């Protein structure tokens, strides 16, 4: 549960007024503030860590979603929201000047739907867990430690973990160096899921958008009074886990008892971190599952509860529901599903266990959980965006209005999203074209204009770069003034290209009056960084023809250069 004040809890329990605010960050870097003035109706978020109401397993992960309608938004082009992300906060009136704000989360925009021409748009988002679907292509040979794996996941899926490897190891209850395996899984999702299994918990994207591992809460953090509920639907049965079991790929298993007098066995199987080739596998397996059995002491009821709502509740929290069952003072529910709406009831789901009492079906294939079988899933590829540098202003003839560079790991189809608002300075035509590595891509139609006309040109231009580094340039053609421009490259597995630091020996230079002049380059990098000093003298001049007959596409020019000949 997000830490809140006592005044906040009192305010929630008495039905205080709620406020909402947030920020929408576009791929181009533009930040739009959101408030009651441009958030329409009831934004809704959904999070869960089990596949259905009667299935409870370790290591379950589901992509959290957002559904929000905005208005008063000026949309620049059809692809305006590609690569955008949105964060929201809810405020509760606690009687002070300012409400108490609770962050709700961070979502990548996955779809946008214009509802009318007046800037009303419905956006759907998926949280950062969605990015874990990125594939891992790595044939590293040798033992992989937890820290290596987490670093690989962070770099591949463009996510950040909330916890350090040491903190994750502490949750698992073993020393970090003993958590290791011999190969990467097919994708980041599977890596994270298997680590979550080891702690008898789950992974989710937290309020700041980071991937967080969590064990289930064993003691209640909140009491839901009967007067604050719209409805309560408890399922039959009180669940308690008596035993935790691990089954390997050969069907051999080991179990560890908990302190709970329940009758359920909860387990998982085929986890690549739990490896043993020896005969004493039972001892080995028990070592892994004993910490889980020791910490899993919960008894809970399954069911759903439509609650007045508390945005501070988190997945995995335990709550007490008062007067849940006639004759009982209260029952405990484990929050495994949270559907929250602004100024609307919050549906809390507490999953039960399957009828057999044995849920050791969570195989390494991930058929039930790894691929995310829920109907609420948003299945989109992990797209990255690189904003190009833009140069609004007056132009006549051909003018570079945006440019930048990016790197891509393997050949793939990408797009350059462009939105340009420009005013014509003379009668004629206005248009633009996109150049990938200085080669013009699909031609864009030009627009005939009269002097003073303002036109908005927008397009998603497909490009197909090969593996490696590339430059993109957007050229406008005509006579006018650019008042607003956004230009973004988006595609899978692309990244911002950074200049290569090359040895001084690849540069030829002369030194005169204590300043160096670069005169030639013989390196292989297509994006070299010119050093600050050469031969002990600061670089001041880049000579004419320095890069003639080289493969260089971009150059990083250091501070201090005064002349480029």
């Amino acid at each position, binding site marked *: 549960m997000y830490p809140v004040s006592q005044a906040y809890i009192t305010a929630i329990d008495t*039905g*205080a*007024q*709620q406020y909402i605010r947030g920020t929408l960050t576009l791929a181009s870097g533009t930040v739009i503030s959101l408030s009651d003035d441009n958030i329409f109706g*009831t934004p809704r978020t959904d999070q869960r860590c089990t596949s259905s109401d009667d299935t409870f397993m370790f290591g379950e992960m589901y992509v959290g979603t957002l559904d929000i309608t905005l208005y008063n938004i000026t949309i620049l082009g059809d692809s305006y929201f590609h690569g955008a992300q949105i964060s929201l906060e809810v405020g509760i009136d606690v009687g002070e000047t300012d409400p108490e704000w609770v962050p709700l989360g961070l979502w990548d925009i996955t779809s946008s739907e214009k509802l009318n021409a007046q800037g009303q748009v419905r956006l759907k988002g998926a949280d950062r867990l969605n990015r874990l679907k990125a594939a891992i292509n790595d044939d590293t040979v040798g033992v992989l430690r937890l820290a290596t794996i987490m670093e690989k996941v962070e770099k591949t899926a463009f996510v950040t973990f909330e916890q350090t490897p040491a903190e994750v190891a502490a949750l698992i209850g073993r020393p970090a160096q003993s958590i290791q395996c011999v190969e990467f899984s097919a994708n980041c999702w599977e890596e994270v899921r298997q680590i979550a299994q080891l702690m008898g918990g789950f992974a989710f994207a937290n309020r700041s958008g980071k991937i967080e591992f969590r064990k289930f809460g064993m003691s209640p953090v909140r009491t839901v009074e*009967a*007067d*604050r*509920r*719209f*409805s*309560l639907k408890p399922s039959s049965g009180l669940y308690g886990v008596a035993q935790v079991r691990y089954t390997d790929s050969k069907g051999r298993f080991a179990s560890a008892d908990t302190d709970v007098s329940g009758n359920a066995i909860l387990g998982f199987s085929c986890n690549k971190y739990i490896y043993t080739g020896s005969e004493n596998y039972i001892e080995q397996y028990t070592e892994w599952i004993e910490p889980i059995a020791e910490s899993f002491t919960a008894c809970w009821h399954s069911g759903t509860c439509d609650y*007045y709502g508390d945005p501070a509740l988190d997945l995995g929290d335990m709550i007490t529901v008062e007067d849940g069952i006639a004759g009982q003072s209260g029952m405990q529910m484990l929050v495994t599903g949270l559907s929250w*709406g602004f*100024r*609307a*009831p919050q549906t809390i789901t507490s999953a039960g266990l399957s009828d057999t009492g044995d849920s050791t079906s969570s195989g390494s294939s991930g058929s039930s959980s790894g691929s995310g079988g829920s109907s609420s899933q948003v299945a989109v590829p992990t797209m990255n965006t690189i904003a190009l540098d833009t140069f609004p202003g007056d132009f006549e003839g051909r003018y570079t209005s945006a440019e930048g560079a990016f790197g891509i790991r393997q050949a793939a189809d990408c797009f350059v999203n462009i939105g340009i608002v420009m005013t014509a300075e003379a009668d004629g035509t206005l248009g633009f074209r996109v150049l990938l590595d200085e080669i013009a891509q699909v031609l864009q139609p030009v627009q005939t204009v009269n002097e003073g006309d303002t036109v908005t040109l927008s397009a998603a231009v497909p490009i197909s770069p090969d593996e490696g580094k590339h430059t993109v340039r957007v050229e406008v053609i005509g006579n006018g003034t650019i008042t607003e421009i956004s230009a973004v490259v988006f595609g899978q597995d692309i990244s911002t290209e950074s200049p290569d630091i090359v040895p001084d020996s690849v540069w030829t230079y002369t030194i005169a009056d204590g300043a160096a002049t670069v005169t030639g380059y013989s390196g292989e990098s297509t994006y070299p960084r010119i050093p600050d000093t050469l031969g002990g003298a600061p670089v001041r001049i880049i000579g004419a023809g320095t890069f003639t007959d080289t493969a260089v596409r971009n150059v990083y020019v250091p501070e201090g250069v005064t002349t480029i000949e």
Partner: protein
Amino acid sequence: MSSKLQPVKDGYRLSKSDLYSDATGRSAETGKLLSYIIRKDVCTIELEYRGTAEQIAEIESIIAPVTRQYSVEFLDNGSYITRTMYPSDRQKSTSVIIDGVPHMTLSFSLVEV
């Protein structure tokens, strides 16, 4: 609004209401109301004028079209407050005939935007 006519009623009727979200409803268990407040103290003022057809037409032209918004200053709890309001719920009726000229009554309300 018009110097020619004064409201017939002695003063005006001011009502305040709170706005609630569509999701507001009663608990299926206890029957208690669970309300999500959107806005508190939204004011409505009811006014009534009487005059000849011409005079009433003049007032009516001022408060039409309904999309027009006014800054209205009124007395509330002993002090004057200003709110932006739009006219609504216009009703006309022939009430009395004075010297053979029918006089009409126009009532309408000003609702806070």
